[in-house]
């Protein structure tokens, strides 16, 4: 059974309970009073618009629309601007809930496949933890030469790279992009320690998530 099927079976008809247990800050979802200030405050909601803006997602969770929520590209539209958080009259940590839902869908393997922000998040995190510090050159190369599934696509990469040529040249000229970063670049000294620390963190996180407790105690 896949992780997704396992979780769906475990929580049967209560997607709200599942979100409360498994999603970062999920225990706040039931506090939403559907005022819509979050949706009206979201910058990407207008360019051209989320499939389901946050308050709609909250209602869908309560209505048990599990698959529609988890497979939606909506949460991946979050720019982490935190406007929804500071404006929410009930102080829901909406940004974190969106991140949490996206991360949960990603963990279950049901998030939309060709979602570019999903791919970029994975690319960014693996870039950052590889040496402890972000390698901006490799990050942008990865962005252009890998598709959303992480597969290398040279043709697409060259096309995208060419479209970005003027931006890259501008940065090179200003000495804000270093071509030699390709050979390594900035990094932490204790990479071994960082890797061991992250391995343990992942292990503990998996353990906590596999043993769902009531939302309030997390």
């Amino acid at each position, binding site marked *: 059974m896949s992780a997704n099927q396992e979780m769906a079976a475990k929580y049967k008809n209560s997607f709200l309970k599942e979100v409360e247990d498994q999603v970062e800050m999920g225990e706040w979802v039931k506090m939403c009073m559907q005022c819509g200030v979050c949706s009206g405050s979201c910058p990407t909601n207008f360019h051209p618009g989320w499939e389901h803006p946050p308050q709609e997602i909250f209602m869908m969770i309560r209505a048990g629309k599990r698959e529609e929520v988890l497979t939606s590209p909506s949460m991946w539209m979050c720019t982490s601007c935190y406007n929804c958080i500071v404006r929410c009259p009930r102080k829901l940590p909406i940004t974190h809930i969106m*991140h949490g839902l*996206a991360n949960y869908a990603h963990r279950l393997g049901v998030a939309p496949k060709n979602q570019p922000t999903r791919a970029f998040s994975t690319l960014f995190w693996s870039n950052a933890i590889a040496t402890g510090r972000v390698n901006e050159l490799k990050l942008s190369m990865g962005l252009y030469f890998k598709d959303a599934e992480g597969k290398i696509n040279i043709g697409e990469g060259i096309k995208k790279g060419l479209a970005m040529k003027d931006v890259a040249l501008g940065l090179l000229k200003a*000495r804000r992009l270093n071509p030699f970063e390709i050979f390594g670049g900035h990094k932490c000294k204790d990479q071994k320690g*960082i890797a061991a620390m992250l391995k343990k*963190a992942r292990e503990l996180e998996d353990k906590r998530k596999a043993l769902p407790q009531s939302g309030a105690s997390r």
Partner: protein
Amino acid sequence: MAKRQYAFYPGCSSQKGASASNYLTSVESMCKTLDIQLTEIPDWNCCGASIGYGEAGELPRHVMNARNFALAETNLPGQDIVATCAACWLGAKESKERIEHSSQLMADTQEALKEAGLQIKVMPEIRHMAEVLVEDFGFEELGRHVKNPLKGLKFAGYVGCQTNRPFGIAGENFENPMYLDKIVETMGGEAVPYDQKVTCCGGALAFSEPDKAQAQIKDIIEAAYDGGAEMIVTPCPLCQANVEIYQGHINKKYGTKFNIPVLYYSQLMTIAYGGSAKEAGLDGQVIRAPKLEAIAK
């Protein structure tokens, strides 16, 4: 001994040859004038930024920040951590808050840190450089060092998101924070009325969803021109890069003729404090700022 000492967290983008390296150049110059000693946290690591959320999850994200806390506290005890990057500050502050709030998370964090031979004994304070300027110095003291006022120059103070929300600078309003305008004015410049002051630049979506982000960036730049600004100034490395480097693409897409320099507050301060264009990192602009270069000593 320097007047004030901090454990410095420069962040990935401020490193040599990285996208905000000119930010660091100007911060160093500004701190020299203010007699601030920044000691880099030894072997600091990436904060995970906001965009790491999809892959990282909770604990891995928090332990990355916790490692920096432990390193700072061990090597530079008693010093506040100061970040210049908005995302580093936000990410670190968020992790600190979460870890302090939950004994389970604290225990898990310590267990993971042990793998790297580290431990948090005392949780350090996490501050943004803008906070240091406003709270530890105050506008009056910042103004005392001005030798070369930015007279007649008009700036749009683009605060953006992450130094403003969700934490913000104490006493400021989320919808209309004033600290950046006040810094501009303290340096002798003019802060123009600017209705996109706290609009998001798209953040990491500038990479993954460029059309969406560029639509937002267009609004941000347009409003700066509408307010009569000659330059935009910001406290955030990603805001700076996003608003500066895509102007060509936006012009092509929308038929605009944008060509407005985007600077850091620390570059303005360096020039106003009598520093040279080089000391202010003005040679690091993709869109050069000739009016600021012209008055530089």
